[in-house]
């Protein structure tokens, strides 16, 4: 849930912010307005999409607001980011304590909204969360000419609420011996990228010479980890998008104006803002694609003659009348998360156990790449679900075949 914690004087703007967010994400994201005077605790149980939006101006936030903010900050920022919005950015752009370390989004008095900046930030942060990893932006660079740039970008992104990791290329893997031992390098890269949710590639002149970075880019693309090249050109260099052929073909990137001293370059505020726009747009676009999952699954059920309704925020119930008075009842949970999100799976199993009436079938439908069988066995074992009956865990690509067969085509 996104909570907009507002002072009475900001009620109208808070409602506009709510409308902006719901205009982009519709019913997929719940937005609640919380007046500061009533702010004693988070209004619901913890949820995957928790986020706190705090409009502010030159006046103090008040004890209630400060207390709630501090509670949220203490309970791991990545699980509930705090997004300050400067209502008078020309006079007060820096949030008050305890969030003075965060960069604020800006309210535009002329257009009477945030110009889409807040929904984009929300989409980017939630997009990182549903990847079901550590929500880290990896800044991939070559030490020869990328350190100074990496430091600036790391600081800038941190101030805007993003977790980052400086991923320096391991030049020791450029040796002949390491090149021959390809599997060893690949394994090292796999382990290195385990926590990466996006790769920001500092595409400097020396970066493309690195075997490590070349393989890392290829591997990240293979795993559908979003890769955004930040192309730093030298004077006279004519190039588009990236020095890396695979990234040229994907046609996303951020180009910086030519500069002779890549290694010592100081990035301007405009350049950093442009980069941030590209990063957030990329992540938010990916997230918005994921929100279509329940709609897509519903379509498959509709085709097979089921009536589909939301039983609660967690479970959809599909019922089909068969011959006579027989009915087929199917419970489905459509997970936005990539792969299997253990808390959601366990909660769903419990929901199903507690449900009355019971369903004939219970589906846990996940998104993202199809999970290999061996990995699926590990997930089920880790969740201690080996003895759970009637549960069907499938990628949403497999749902149509299951429904078409009237649940007869399932195998162990």
């Amino acid at each position: 849930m996104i909570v907009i914690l507002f002072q009475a004087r900001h009620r109208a703007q808070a409602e506009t912010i709510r409308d902006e967010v719901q205009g982009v994400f519709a019913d997929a994201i719940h937005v609640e307005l919380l007046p500061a005077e009533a702010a004693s605790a988070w209004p619901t149980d913890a949820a995957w999409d928790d986020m706190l939006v705090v409009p502010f101006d030159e006046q103090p936030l008040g004890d209630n607001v400060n207390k709630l903010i501090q509670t949220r900050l203490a309970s791991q920022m990545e699980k509930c980011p705090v997004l300050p919005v400067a209502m008078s950015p020309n006079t007060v752009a820096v949030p008050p304590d305890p969030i003075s370390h965060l960069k604020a989004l800006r309210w535009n008095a002329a257009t009477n909204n945030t110009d889409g900046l807040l929904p984009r930030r929300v989409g980017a942060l939630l997009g990182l969360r549903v990847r079901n990893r550590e929500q880290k932006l990896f800044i991939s660079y070559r030490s020869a000419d990328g350190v100074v740039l990496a430091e600036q970008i790391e600081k800038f992104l941190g101030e805007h609420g993003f977790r980052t990791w400086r991923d320096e290329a391991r030049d020791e893997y450029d040796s002949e011996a390491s090149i021959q031992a390809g599997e060893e390098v690949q394994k090292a890269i796999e382990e290195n990228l385990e926590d990466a949710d996006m790769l920001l590639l500092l595409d400097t002149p020396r970066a493309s010479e690195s075997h490590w970075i070349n393989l890392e880019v290829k591997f990240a693309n293979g795993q559908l980890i979003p890769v955004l090249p930040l192309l730093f050109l030298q004077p006279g260099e004519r190039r588009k998008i990236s020095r890396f052929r695979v990234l040229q073909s994907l046609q996303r990137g951020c180009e910086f104006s030519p500069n002779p001293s890549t290694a010592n370059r100081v990035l301007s505020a405009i350049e950093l803002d442009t980069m941030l726009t590209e990063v957030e747009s990329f992540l938010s676009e990916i997230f918005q694609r994921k929100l279509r999952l329940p709609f897509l699954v519903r379509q498959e059920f509709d085709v097979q003659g089921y009536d589909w309704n939301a039983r609660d925020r967690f479970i959809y119930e599909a019922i089909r009348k068969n011959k006579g008075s027989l009915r087929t009842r199917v419970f489905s949970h459509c997970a936005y998360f990539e792969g299997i999100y253990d808390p959601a799976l366990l909660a769903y199993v419990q929901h199903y156990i507690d449900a009355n009436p019971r369903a004939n079938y219970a589906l846990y439908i996940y998104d993202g790449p199809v999970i290999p069988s061996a990995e699926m066995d590990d997930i089920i074992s880790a969740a201690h679900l080996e003895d759970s009956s009637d549960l069907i865990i499938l990628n949403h690509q497999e749902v149509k075949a299951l429904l078409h067969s009237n649940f007869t085509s399932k195998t162990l």
Partner: protein
Amino acid sequence: MIVTQVNASLKGFNVGISGAVPERADWSEPAQDRAILEFTALLSGLIIKYGGRIVHGSHPSLTPVIAHQAETQAETETEKPLTLFMSELWSSQLDPTERSWYDRVSDFVTTPKIGEGDETDSETRNQSLTAMRRALIQRMNSMVVVGGMQHTTNLFLPGIIEELTLARTRGMPCFLVGGFGGMTSRVVQEVIIGAGASDLRNGLSPEQNEALMTSTDIASCVSIIFSHLAENPSLADRPLVNLEN
């Protein structure tokens, strides 16, 4: 007991994936690149998971995605359910690390360079790719076409046009995924207006072909193809014209 698979087999299918992320100016949605990559990952993952093989011409935008699915979905460590073709116009430029990667993830087949120029020379590029594509299509028994560059600003031949022409010459079932833009969406317009989908010889109903050619929904497109192949295993055994004759 928990169920994690449907009862389906795609053994015997050598499914070609023809296409690429189109030029950005032609994207019909903000994240068209992601749509095509996710489609490719899901389709190739499912095909390999259920026993089929993927054949692809090593386009840089799709190869890492397909290769990753081949590595993770293969049932055994020695099995390589992926065949990648590349012209020596490019394979000769691969450094040992890259060559090693291609050999590790696939049955890697290189075809001769035709012409004296480099990859920027349109004549050398077009002729070399034509030679590669003939060998590539010969290895497939079905083909899925998605996206694809249009090359309106240079003299390069759009790859999916050539590959689709060769595939139709062979008589193999072709599936046009037209909702993700690029050259495929243009071909779809010609198919709908012209000869019609029966020319694709894929066995889908007119309604299914239309859905596949116009839908922007990855799940729906992958489902149509996956379900159809699973329900029609004889498509893998259809006698095909030999391009080598």
